């Protein structure tokens, strides 16, 4: 049994709304480019959301300056997913967000002044902790009760969706807004540069010449509703989340295992949970970061699970950049759109298959096939592997 999705919202380098993101995906238009809003980093390019913090605060009606960009992006997407829904005394409503950096975009402003003893503003740190990022979004939306934040590096957003679905199926909640948000920061850009996996050129997922990722920022949110909530709200499901699984790779702190153990487990268990056959998966929205290690390990996992019958797959990271904790949620929104619109997105910047695995992702937009079930992968540091399965609402 799955859980219904009745609302979606997204903000990323390719648009401020679902509609704008969809248009860019259809037009194969990447949002990655030179940094404009975040100054002073060493990255030559990234997937920035095309709005300043002031723009976002104005548009969202947030008056305080003590708010992280992570919260603002999250609020933008959460508002869109929430839509015109009303608070209710009867429908137990929760909020689960995911973030990897929380308010680091503000904390690093503080810390720079702190190090140089240049009147550091300690108040900036009140937005540092990841939980406060979510509490800010909850306060703006008027949600109280179950408010939670997950942080499992690059799989966080997918895990928020999984936890939300489980809470509904167990009857703990009737309705839950789930998603993830992360803002670009000097901290993460320097971090991935220190790992020597930040590509100064365009990232090239699943290409033999791939040399690393481009970071991005943004947020994705989905409104999940159980049966009781659907009866009371009268909302019409746009899609279902029907499969989910998380598994630990337990191989290495950062590297994925060459045999794709954790990823294989996550994919297999998610599809089993969805109760559909391997052949029913119409499209795989891959994690596909563009690093040597991830794309190889993920390709091996796809082969482990699907053998010679790997469904059409692509990574949308070359559109948005790798948005860390938001990635699983943004790509969940893209997966819902793939089903709604019967779309298979192109894997931009791909030319040559990876020699060891020989897999070719979808390189051109495909609008000619029905898309009924999508597998979405999100794999993170610490060997944290998650897969979700979305299916058409019947």
């Amino acid at each position: 049994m799955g859980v219904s999705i009745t609302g979606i919202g997204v903000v990323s380098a390719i648009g401020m709304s679902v509609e704008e993101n969809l248009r860019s995906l259809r037009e194969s238009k990447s949002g990655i480019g030179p940094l404009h809003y975040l100054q002073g980093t060493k990255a030559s390019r990234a997937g920035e959301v095309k709005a300043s913090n002031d723009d976002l605060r104005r548009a969202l009606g947030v008056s305080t300056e003590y708010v992280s960009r992570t919260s603002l992006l999250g609020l933008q997407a959460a508002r869109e997913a929430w839509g015109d829904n009303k608070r209710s005394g009867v429908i137990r409503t929760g909020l689960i967000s995911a973030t990897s950096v929380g308010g680091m975009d503000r904390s690093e402003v503080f810390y720079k002044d702190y190090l140089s003893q240049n009147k550091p503003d300690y108040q900036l740190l009140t937005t540092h902790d990841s939980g406060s990022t979510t509490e800010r979004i909850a306060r703006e939306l008027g949600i109280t009760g179950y408010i939670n934040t997950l942080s499992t590096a690059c799989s966080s957003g997918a895990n928020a969706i999984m936890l939300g679905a489980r809470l509904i199926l167990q009857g703990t909640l009737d309705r839950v807004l789930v998603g993830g948000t992360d803002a670009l920061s000097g901290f993460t850009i320097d971090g991935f540069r220190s790992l020597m996996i930040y590509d100064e050129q365009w990232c090239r997922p699943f290409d033999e010449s791939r040399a690393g990722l481009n970071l991005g920022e943004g947020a994705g949110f989905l409104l999940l509703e159980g049966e009781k909530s659907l009866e009371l709200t009268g909302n019409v499901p746009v899609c279902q989340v029907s499969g989910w699984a998380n598994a630990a790779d337990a191989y290495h702190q950062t590297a994925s295992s060459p045999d794709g153990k954790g990823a294989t487990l996550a994919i297999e268990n998610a599809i089993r949970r969805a109760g559909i056959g391997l052949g029913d998966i119409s499209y795989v929205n891959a994690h596909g970061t563009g690093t040597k290690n991830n794309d190889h390990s993920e390709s091996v996992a796809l082969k482990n699970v699907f053998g010679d019958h790997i469904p059409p797959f692509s990574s949308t990271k070359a559109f948005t950049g790798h948005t860390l904790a938001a990635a699983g949620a943004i790509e969940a929104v893209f997966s819902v759109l793939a089903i709604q619109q019967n779309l298979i997105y192109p894997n931009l910047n791909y030319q040559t298959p990876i020699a060891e695995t020989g897999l070719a992702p979808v390189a051109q937009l495909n609008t000619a096939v029905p898309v009924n079930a999508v597998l979405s992968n999100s794999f993170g540091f610490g060997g944290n592997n998650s897969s979700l399965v979305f299916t058409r609402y019947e």
Partner: protein
Amino acid sequence: MDSLKEDLKKQIIEQLNLEDLTVADIADDALLFNDQGLGLDSIDALELIVLLEKYHGIQLVNPEEGKEAFKSVDTMAAYIRKRKAA
């Protein structure tokens, strides 16, 4: 005694937090990335690249290039001398 190799051993112990080891514990030809040697991993390889730049002014941009250079203290010393002579 080769002072470059001795320095390298001290730097490796510090950079990689090998708190239980002393310079005397690391043989010149011990395999750094082998479990019979120091048992280092890919994170250590990145730390060694930082070490080369920090202490020896040598930039190694491609981690793959480090594989040969970082076999042992012997090969690291030889690599540093080659790069300095070039």
